[in-house]
Every structure is written in C-alpha cells, then in structure tokens.
C-alpha cells in the first residue's frame, strides 16, 4: 500500500507550488505556472496510483497528526480517508486543476496579465485546500479546508481588484457563503459535542474498531437504541432522530452556501467576475461540488433522517428549476453557464435527497467534466472576443474557431442531456431514482420526492433551451460585431485542454450506463460497482461507506422504497424517454427561435416575466433589503446599547473612581496634626464599634 504512504503528497504538492509561486513566482518563467502544472500533474499521477490501489480493494483511514487532546476523550486530528468516493473525487479535482493550469497559460500569460504569481499562488493554494478537503477523514478537518477553499475563492474572484466589480463580487461570495458556513460551524460543534468524534468512517486496526465514526454512532443510537453514551440528547431534550436531523440541517447550511443552492445561490453569478479559468475550476467543477461531496461523504448520517432527506431533495429540485429559468434570458455567456451550474448542482442535491447516491456522484463526475469544458470553451471565446462576453455581439464563430466549437458543442449536448453524451446518463439516473423512490415511498417523503422530481423534469426542458440558445447565439448565424468577424486566434494551450475535456464529455457517461446495463444484463455499471464494493466483507464492511450500507439505512430507517408504476423495465424506458424528449424539445425550440442567420431577441414576448427573470426574481434585492432594512437597524440598536449602556457604565465607573480618588487625596492635607487626629479617631471608631459588638462596656 505504498500509494497510501505517498497520499499526503497529493495535497502537499500543490501547496508547495503555492509557496513557490508566491515567493519566487516573479523570478520564474510564466509567473509560477510551470510549478503549478508540475505539482498538479504530480498530484494527478499520485491520484491515479491511489485510485488503482483502491480499485484493488484496499482502503485507507488513518490519523496523521493529532493536534489537540482534551482531558476528556475528545481529540482533534488531521487524517486521511481514502475510499472509492474520495479516490474518484481526487481524480476529478487533480485532472480539472491540471487542465485549468494549462489553459491559464493561454488565458492569463498570453493575454499579458500582471500579477501572475498571485494568480498561480491562488490556484495552488486552492487546489491544495480542495484536495485536503476531499481526503479529510473527519468533519473538523473538512470544515477547515472548506473555509480555506472559500478564502481562495474570495482571493481569485477579486483577482482584478483594481476594477469595481470583482472586489465587490468577491466580498459578496465570501459573505454569502460565510452565512451558510456559520450554521455549518455550529453543526460541527454540535456533532463533536454529541458524539465526541467527527470521523466519517471508523478506524480499524486488525479487524477491531479502535475509533468509531459519528454516522455509525448515530446509526447505533437510532437502530439499536444505544443512546446511553450520548449525553447531549438529554441536554437538548429530543429524541435521537430529531436531534440528528437538527445537526444534519445545520451542516446543510454550509452545503447550501457552498454549492450555491437556493436561497444562498446569489453569490455564484457574481463570482463570474473572476478570471474564466478560475470560474471553470472553482465555480463549476470543484469547489462548488464541495457541498454535494460533503453530503455524500456523510451520507450514512443523512440517510438516517427522512426529514433531512426531504429538505435536501426539495431544495435540489427547486434550485434546479429556479436557476434554469433565470438562465433563459441572460445575455452574457458566463452568466448562462453560472445559472446552469446552480441548476445542475440542484440535480445532485435532488439525487442525494431522494436516495440516489450513485446518481449524485455520477452527475457530480460528468458535470465536473462538461461544465469545466463549457467554461473553458467560453474562456476561449472570450479570448477571441477580446473580453466581450455579450452573446449578442458574437455569432458565426463556428467556422473561425472549429476546435472550440466542436468541443463546446459536445459539452452543450452533455449539459442538455442528449444521448449518448455524458450528461444524459447521469441526469437520467438522477430523475429515475427520484421517480421510483417517489412512487415507492409512502407518506410525506414520497410526495416530496414526486414534487422535486416534477421540478427537476421541467428543468430539463429549460436546460436544453438555454444551452442551445447559447450555442446558436455564439457560434451560428452571421457575425454581429467586428471582433466576431475577426476573432483573435487561440493557441495549443487552450485547444489542448478543450480537446481532452471534449472527448471526456462525450464518453464519460459510459462508466455507468445503468439503463443499458439493466436492459441487456451486461455488467457495465462500473461506477455502481466502484462505490458498492464487494457484497460481503472488504472495505464496505470496514468503513461502512459503501452503497450497500446506505441503501440498507435508507430502506430500514427512512423507509425509502422503490416503486415501479409501470413495471420495472417500462418505467426505466419511460423515464429516459420523457427526459430525453423534453431535452430535445428544448433544443428544438431554441433552434426555431435563434438558429437563423440573424437571430432577434424574443425575450420581450415574456412581458412582465422578463423583468422578473432579468432581475433574478429580485433575490439580490430582497437579500440587500434584509441586510440594510433589518440587520443594519438591529445592529444600530445594538451599537446604541453598547455605546450608551455598556460604555456608559464603564465610563461612569471610571469617572466615579477618579472623583473618589481626588476626594481621598484631600484627606492627605500635609498637616501632621491632622494625621494624628485622623489616626486616633480611626482607632477610637474601631474600638467603639468592636466594643459594642463584643459587649465590653
């Protein structure tokens, strides 16, 4: 298991590149880019090695460094958890980061940007933090790296800090996600206080469990009634399931903020002010995935709470639809992609909430590839258009930049969910899982699933529409501006990453063609096998992070049951057919409206709805109102209280003290006979007082 010995280097290599770029970047060729490329390349190779080792059936869960022990049993550690889920995520993050570093050569270096060391230092620190988050084996470590990626996001969004937009967008991203993280932090403290541990998976030595994980403790508490060791339940006066739901929802606050789910999604569109490679890496493929990944990481905990599952599914479904509608009317290419990102993460949440663990991880994987591709493609277009992002100024770029066009098209087909591109397979599985669990599960949870499914399904149509509206406006028709007629050519460092991602976006769906597998009986659902592990023994038995375990919990504790309204195979086909049909319908509508040589705006036909959509349902406005209308006056009252009452008391005490001091000073008159008098008087007073008390007289 040598791979696991070197696993910490996966995190440390990009960190070294961060240091190199920060301190020596201005003395190096390419401003530190080469260090970053080398480091992420090295991490990628190591990740592949780790993945191969994990594929061989080995897993790794170990504490590396214990940084605090308390008098009680509570310990705070840094540790590695390398199982199929984290190995897969490592691959994704390293690959995208590697490609984005290369792309940055074209987007930043060739464009003559200044401050490159700062840029590459940011990318390096981000990659290191994200990888640290992925391999974290406990919740606190995960939280720390979660915050670090947030910091890097802030630094990189505000890269062009001399302009007006980016600093403001960076602040917004930081504050909005911090609002969610606040709940996350409380959740972390709550989980530590409840279970005394933040481990995601039990640590075993020689087959014996030496440190239990908190999802397992929660499971024992609910399933076996072992609540004796959990004093917190008595403190809060709740049953185990209710309290664990509260904890889960608190952690979900961080997830909602980071994965840009409603109502904390408002920061992501603004984050597009950052450099486009940053948008591709951080705000599409990896950091935004951290929230979803966290839910998947501690899925054993969420699977115990039907309420939390319903909340996750509903948030996901609603966000998928809500964000897709806002993407319909945007004019800037990156804005469309931003809303599409929010919407796609909604699908992942929907999958997680409705018991589709595989579907969520699958969609996370495919989305990382095709959305990174689309952002990099958009970056290529932006280079060509001299940083004009308005799609109405483009048009006709198809012939002038064919590599970008064809790869972008592959990404768009994947995003829209057209067979056989990657997005079709994963999105179909998300919807299929929501559907069958919606029909099978009884009570409110099943209803919630069906509602969420309906919203997700509707969003498929919108996705197809806005994706191909974007494609037609950007690449088809006649060029609508001079720059579009004579775009700046892009070099290999842009085309290379695009090609790699384009091929992947076309093919990566094949890792889990569940419908084909079911129909033909061929064992080609590789991702399913990857996350399920061997049925008996092996790593799932040791870590309890296998799919099989989660399905058992979903079924036994939350009563999530599969149901097939039309029988198993017809339901499968109908679900795939409906979603494909809706996607195609969306594409066709877009084609009818925008495919001509000289497309015109159709948004005015929406009437009042257009204003609503253009203003993003006034989400920003109401959040600003919350800040200025509610929080600010409240803060002012607090300030008044602080200045008036608290400071008043303090100032009062000090002036009373000084006044008292000056009075006491006057006793010291300087006349010695006064002193003698006072001294004698004092003694006499004492004598009299104690004499009366003691009854001497």
């Amino acid at each position: 298991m040598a791979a696991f010995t070197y696993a910490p280097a996966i995190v440390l290599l990009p960190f070294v590149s961060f240091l190199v770029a920060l301190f020596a970047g201005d003395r190096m060729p390419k401003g530190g880019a080469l260090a970053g490329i080398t480091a992420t390349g090295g991490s990628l190779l190591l990740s592949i090695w780790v993945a191969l080792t994990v594929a061989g059936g080995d897993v790794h869960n170990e504490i590396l460094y214990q940084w605090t022990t308390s008098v009680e049993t509570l310990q705070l550690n840094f540790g590695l958890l390398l199982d199929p889920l984290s190995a897969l995520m490592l691959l994704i993050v390293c690959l995208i980061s590697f490609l984005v570093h290369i792309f940055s050569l074209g987007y930043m270096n060739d464009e003559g940007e200044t401050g490159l060391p700062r840029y590459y230092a940011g990318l390096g620190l981000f990659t290191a933090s994200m990888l640290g988050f992925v391999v974290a084996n406990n919740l606190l470590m995960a939280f720390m790296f979660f915050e670090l990626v947030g910091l890097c996001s802030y630094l990189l969004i505000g890269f062009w800090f001399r302009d007006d937009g980016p600093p403001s967008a960076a602040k917004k991203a930081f504050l909005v996600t911090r609002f969610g993280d606040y709940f996350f932090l409380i959740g972390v403290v709550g989980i530590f206080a409840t279970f005394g541990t933040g481990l995601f998976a039990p640590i075993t030595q020689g087959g014996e469990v030496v440190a239990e994980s908190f999802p397992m403790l929660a499971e024992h508490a609910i399933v076996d009634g072992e609540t004796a060791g959990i004093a917190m339940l008595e403190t809060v006066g709740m049953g185990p399931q209710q309290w664990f739901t509260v904890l889960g929802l608190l952690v979900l606050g961080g997830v909602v903020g980071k994965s840009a789910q409603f109502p904390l999604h408002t920061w992501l569109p603004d984050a597009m002010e950052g450099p486009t490679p940053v948008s591709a890496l951080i705000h599409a493929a990896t950091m935004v995935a951290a929230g979803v990944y966290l839910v998947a990481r501690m899925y054993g905990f969420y699977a115990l709470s039907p309420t939390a599952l319903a909340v996750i599914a509903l948030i996901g479904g609603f966000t998928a639809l809500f964000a897709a509608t806002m993407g319909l009317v945007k004019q800037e290419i990156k804005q469309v992609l931003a809303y599409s990102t929010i919407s796609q993460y909604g699908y992942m949440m929907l999958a997680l909430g409705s018991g589709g663990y595989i579907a969520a991880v699958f969609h996370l994987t495919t989305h990382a590839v095709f959305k990174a591709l689309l952002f990099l493609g958009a970056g290529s277009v932006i280079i060509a258009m001299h940083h004009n992002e308005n799609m109405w100024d483009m048009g006709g770029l198809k012939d002038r930049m064919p590599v970008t066009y064809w790869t972008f098209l592959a990404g768009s087909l994947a995003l829209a969910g057209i067979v056989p591109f990657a997005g079709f397979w994963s999105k179909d599985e998300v919807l299929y899982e929501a559907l069958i669990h919606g029909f099978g599960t009884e009570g409110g949870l099943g209803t919630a699933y069906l509602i969420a499914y309906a919203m997700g399904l509707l969003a498929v149509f919108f996705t197809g529409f806005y994706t191909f509206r974007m494609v037609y406006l950007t690449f088809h028709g006649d060029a609508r501006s001079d720059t579009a007629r004579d775009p700046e050519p892009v070099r290999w460092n842009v085309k290379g990453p695009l090609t790699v991602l384009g091929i992947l976006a076309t093919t990566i769906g094949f890792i889990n063609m569940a419908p084909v597998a079911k129909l033909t009986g061929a064992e080609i659902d590789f991702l399913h096998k990857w996350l399920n592990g061997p049925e008996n023994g092996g790593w799932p038995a040791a870590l309890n992070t296998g799919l099989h375990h989660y399905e058992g919990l979903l079924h036994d504790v939350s009563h999530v049951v599969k149901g097939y309204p039309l029988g198993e195979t017809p339901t499968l086909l109908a679900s795939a057919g409906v979603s494909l049909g809706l996607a195609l319908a969306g594409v066709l509508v877009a084609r009818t409206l925008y495919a001509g040589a000289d497309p015109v705006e159709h948004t005015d036909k929406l009437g009042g709805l257009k204003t609503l959509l253009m203003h993003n349902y006034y989400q920003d406005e109401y959040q600003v109102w919350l800040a200025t209308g509610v929080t600010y006056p409240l803060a002012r009252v607090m300030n008044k209280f602080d200045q008036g009452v608290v400071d008043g008391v303090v100032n009062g005490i000090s002036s009373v003290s000084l006044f008292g001091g000056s009075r006491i000073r006057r006793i010291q008159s300087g006349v010695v006979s006064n002193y003698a008098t006072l001294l004698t008087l004092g003694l006499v007073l004492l004598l009299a007082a104690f004499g009366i008390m003691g009854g001497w007289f």
Partner: protein
Amino acid sequence: MALAPALSLGLASLVLLLADSIDPDSTNTGLLAGISGIGSLLSFGFAGWFITAGTGIADSTGVALFNNQLVVDQMALFFMAIVGSVTTLVVLASYDYIAGHDYQAEFFSLVLLSATGMSLLSAANSLATAFIALELVSLPSYALVAFLKHNKGSVEAGLKYFLIGAVSSAILAYGISLVYAATGVLRFDGVATAISSGTVQTIVDGSIQAQSGDPAVPMAILGVGILMIIGGVAFKTASVPFHFWAPEAYEGAPAPISAFLSSASKAAGFVLAFRVFAVAFPIGDLLAAGGAINWVMAFQILAIATMFVGNFAAATQETVKRMLAYSSVGHAGYVLIGLAAVSGSGEGLSLSMSAGMSHLLVYGFMNTGAFLFIALAEYWGVGRRFEDYNGLGKEAPVACAAMTVFLFSLAGLPIGGGFFSKFYLFQATLNVSAWSLAAALIINSALSLFYYSRVVKAMWIEEPTGSRTIESYPMGLYTAVVGAAIVTVLLLPGFNRVSEIAFQAAQLL
C-alpha cells in the same frame, strides 16, 4: 547559629562603623557599599540555606532561642530572606545614589541596623522582643528618611514619619501592656494558652502555668489590647487609617530608602502581624471564649479600606513617586487579605497567610525595583511628574523595559510573579467565600492597571516634551533594577516553589 541571617546584618553594620572610624575624614563608597552588600548577601544566603536545609521543619516548633523569646522557623527564615534580598538591592542602588553625600558610613550602617531589626522581628516570639525589634526597625528609618539634610522635603517627611511613628508606637506599647495585664504573659504561646484556657497564666522556668487561684482572663481588656496591637501593626504596614505617614515619607525620602521602607519594612510589619495573630490570638479560641474581639473582621475592614484608599488615591496622583507610594498602600491592603480571608472557625488561615507571604516576596522585588527606577530617574534629574517620563523608553530602553515589567507585575499581569501571587490571594478569598474581599481585589487590580499603564504609556508611547540628556548609566542602580526585573520574571515560573515554601511555613505555625 540559627540567627545568622540577623547577626550577619548586625555585624556588618558594626564593621561599617569600625571601617569609618579608622579614617573618618575620607569616604570610600565602594568599600562601604561592599561591606554592606556582603553583609546583606550573607544574610540572604544564610536564610536561603536554612530554608532549603529544612531548619524548623523537623522539630515543628522551630529553633527556640533565649528562653523562647526568639524562634527561628520557616516563616522567620522566609521573611529574613525577603529582608536580605531587598537590603541587597537597596545597598546596590545606594552605591550610586548617595555618591557624593556626607555620612555615607552612617547611611549604610543605619540601613543595616534597620534590616537587623526586621530580621529579628521575623523571629520574635514574645510581645516584648517584638516591640524592641520594631523600634530597632523604626528609629534608624526615621533618620534615613531625613537623610538628605539640606532637602526640605526629606527633613519634613522624616519629622512627620517620626511623629506618627511615636503615636503608633505608643498605641502599640499600650496594647501590649493591656494584653499582658489580661493574660499575665508576653510570650505568644503563653498568650494563646491563656486565651484557650480562659485563665491568667505565668511562666515559671520557661514553662507556662496557670496562676494560682485560676483568675479568669478579662476578655474586654484583652480585646482592647488586641485592637491596639492591630493599630501598631497597621502603622508598620502602612494600612488605613495608619497610612498617613507613608505617602509623605516615601516621597520625601531618598528613593532607595523609599524602596527599603515600602518593601522590607512593610514585610517586617506583616511578619509580626502574621505571627502574633496566628500564634498568640488563635481566632477559633478567641471566638469560643466569647466577648473578645473578632480580629478577622477587623482585618477585613482594614483590608478593604486600605485597598480602596490606596488605589483610588494612586489613580489621581500627578507624580510617579507618590503614585507608587499610594499603590504601596494598596498592596498592603492586598496582603492584609492574608489575615482577613479566614473562616469563622479559623480555617483557611494557612492558605491565606501563605498567599500573603508569597505576595510579599514577589512584591519585595517588583516594588523595590520600581522605586529603584525612580531612584535612577532622580539620579538623572528627570522630573517627578508623569509627563517628565515621556519618551524615556527611547533613551534608556533597558531600564524602562525593567520598569514595565515591574508595573505590569504590580498590576497583576502575567509578565511577572505578581500575576500568580495576586491569583493566589484571590484563590484564598474564594476558599472561604469572602466575596467582598474578592470583589475588592478585582476592582482595585483593574483600577491599578489604569494608573500603572500611565507610566508605561509615558515611557514608550509619548513623545518627550523637553530636551533632556542622560549622561551616565550608573552601574549599581542598573544592576539592581535589572536584577530585580529578572527575578520578577523568573518568579513567574518559579512561583510554585515559593508558594510551597510559604504554605509549609504557614502550616507549621
């Protein structure tokens, strides 16, 4: 032999006079300071050696001398060590301070004689010896305060000190006579026996016996006597309402003498108080006998009043030396907690007394150091007010850094041993749930930080107002100041050892 710490001080003072009489017309400051320094260092060394050797631990009563008139036990040695160390620092500093003055031999021998008195006082086991030792402390110090004969302030301070001292001594002597009248004995253990048995005692061939006819102890007379003894002790420790002399004397006296009086002399007053009240007037027996005075309550009143008067007056002073004088009064209030944080049945006395002792030891270094810094400032001719210290940190960074350590340690910040000793006192108050004392301690410590930091702010932050040049950096004063600062800081990690010794000493009583 057990009296070696006191004897070495006394002998050194005689040697000084001898050395001076060989050639009365010339003055060799180095020789005189050297003799005094060796004497006081020897005293400190002996005390330290005896403490570590465990004198008085094995036989639990200590080494009794002169028919039990003196007793050398751990507590006596603890205070002898304090006296020895403070005297060493003062002598070291005086080497520079009095260079050029007349009567240097007399100065040093007076200091040493007074220190001898303090050492003896630590070991006094009878009201008579205690009184004599106390006078041996006081009389030289009156002369020392007025040492700067041509300085009106110094002379006036000396006279005031003497007058108040005379009144206080009279009160103390009267108190002693009343106690003697009530109990028939002067020895501390005899007084205790009289109180616990309720009958007047006498001493025959060194052993305590009841007087024939078993006359009862008149508790009212005893009570008045005890209260007057409290008065005498309060004078020596500069506690309210006997503190009036302190600000004037400290301000008028040469700064090394202020350091000497406010540290060593105060410690001597406290050792008397601790011993008399812990040994001779056991509070449990007193209360059980009924009718007599509850001295714990008296000390509580005194402690709170002293803390408030000292600190509040210090907060509004304009000159640094006077501020330190008042703060020294405030610190007497803190140490009084040692006798005040005691429960009705006498529990907690060991803890609170050891807290008081530890504070005195730490205080011996930080307060002496602070006054010696004033001596340094006077030596340089820097003015007396806070403003005059502006920007001093730039010109004398080492001394100012030491002063900062002293002041913050006095305030109770964890930069020196003052933090732990104050914390220990606080614990002692909590131990017996004496909330009023605890509150007074906290409030006054917070207030004290205010006026101490005024000096620090002036030294480091403010810009100097006028032009001033520092010509020389006197070696002796610097050594004393820096040495005291180092010890103050070292007492932070070393406090545990000090408090252990103090607790053991207090328990043995």
